[in-house]
């Protein structure tokens, strides 16, 4: 079983977002970076599948050198080797093209990633990669087992879930509760240092979409507090003032 796990290097979910350079760059001061939480679920399930079925896990990141600590963490959690495509991932099509190129070379049975990155929240890279490779893609996958060359999995749908079976290879966008996040142990951290991390340059993609300026939402006005003993007035305020009822 050869598994490719794609991870993103993103600001922690609690990070305060602000911008610098005339609102063209994220202000990275004081921002802690993490493996994308959804990608972390994908990685955790990959490690469990490898323990059960044998095989190998390659971790792939499209990102600049600042991704390396997160890639090392993924290696410490249980990936065997890593590839970093040295480019800032600002467009889904560009990012998917890089992943598809690496995936094609490696001949993986399973390509796992998070359902979406938590910086851009697009949720389209798995579909793009699947189509670029000419193989099926599904998301968001919340349960995954492999039997021989068949994947048996559950996908969240509106108001519930759907159970599916499909032949490998597949691209899956993952989310909880597919597995529990794994914390690297000391042995993992030690061995991660010497596991191979290959850095490759991106392949050229025509200009599809270019990021311009960032903006922050307008600040929220003060919260109107209603005394508990007059809670009922909330309903009339929602009708007459907020006009949402």
């Amino acid at each position, binding site marked *: 079983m050869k598994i490719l796990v794609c991870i993103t290097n993103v600001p922690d979910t*609690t990070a305060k977002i602000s911008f610098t350079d005339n609102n063209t760059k994220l202000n990275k001061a004081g921002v802690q970076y993490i493996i994308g939480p959804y990608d972390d679920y994908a990685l955790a399930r990959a490690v469990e599948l490898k323990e059960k079925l044998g095989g190998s896990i390659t971790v792939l990141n499209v990102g600049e050198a600042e991704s390396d600590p997160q890639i090392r963490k993924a290696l410490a959690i249980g990936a065997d080797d890593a590839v970093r495509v040295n480019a800032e991932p600002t467009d889904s099509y560009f990012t998917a093209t890089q992943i598809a190129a690496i995936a094609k070379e490696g001949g993986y049975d399973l390509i796992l990633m998070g359902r979406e990155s*938590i910086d851009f*929240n697009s949720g389209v890279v798995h579909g793009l990669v699947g189509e*670029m490779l000419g193989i099926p893609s599904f998301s968001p996958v919340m349960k995954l087992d492999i039997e021989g060359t068949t994947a048996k999995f559950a996908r969240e749908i509106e*108001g519930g879930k759907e159970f599916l079976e499909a032949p490998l290879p597949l691209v899956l966008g993952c989310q909880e509760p597919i597995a529990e996040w794994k914390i690297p142990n000391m042995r993992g951290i030690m061995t991660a240092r010497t596991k191979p991390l290959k850095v490759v340059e991106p392949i050229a993609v025509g200009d599809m979409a270019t990021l*311009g300026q960032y903006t922050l939402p307008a600040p929220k006005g003060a919260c109107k507090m209603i005394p508990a003993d007059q809670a009922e007035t909330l309903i009339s305020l929602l009708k007459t003032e907020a006009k949402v009822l």
Partner: protein
Amino acid sequence: MVLIFVELDNGSIKKTSLEAVAYGAAVAKATGTTATALAIGTADAAELAKTGAYGATKILHANAAELANENAMAYASVLAAAVKNENAEVVILPKSGLCDAMGARAAAKLGASIVSGVTELPDVSNGFKVTRSIYTGKAFATVDVKGAVKILGIKKNAIEAVEGAGSATVEAFMPALNNGDFVAKVTGQEKASGELSLTEADIIVSGGRGMKGPDNWQPLLDLASALGAATGCSKPVSDLDWRPHHEHIGQTGIKVAPNLYIACGISGAIQHLAGVNSSKVIVAINKDPEAPFFKAADYGIVGDVFDILPRLTKAVKDAK
């Protein structure tokens, strides 16, 4: 030409899809062209023609037994065929799991730009610039979209859909289906019936750990039912299995954008707020006056949810 995909739910066009039609029609108007809708699955002609009231001149209807399940791969093939057939330059999809998946695969088939999470109409005065939500609603970015075909996934409330008078011509559209799109077998489905969808709902009543246990949800459900609202919950609540996982709202759950979001006994962790910050009006009810939710809310009540919820339900019923 602008092509808009509309999602069907048991033969009815979803509200977010009608918004997408209005959005597509506005883009068509700004670029001096027409808007065509595309629906896949079973629906009657009168329902489909409704897209005309939101600005579509024509609606393509693809219907076949094989398309009864929401199969994103097959839907993407139909969408890509429609784009080619109609020479569409801009494709609009509402933001949803199905639409993200089919939009992505169609983009790869067509070599098209794809931008998801769009929050406003594009600026077409010089190129094609859109504003999109990033960092789970914590910020926005402008994107210059450059592909010959541009696929946009639009967020709920990106435009106010006003129903007009027109009616769209319904045209059958059935491209050849690819066997490769049907390799996956659906072996089962678990779906709560009759539930309002969180992504479509105009009002959401949501509960957190302050509800103190799975058996205490009735007052919240009563208020939701009086308001015609969908129900959601915070991450700890779904982690504890007090409520089903598909109700989890937040950064790693469903992102919602209702007109009214009522948070009951939710402290307002930043990860939860990220999933609700696109709501128009937020109400927080919490016994802790220091709960961070009050900083993100428009209206707040400090008090016991079990005292306040039944009184709000009664006030809603009395006002009817």
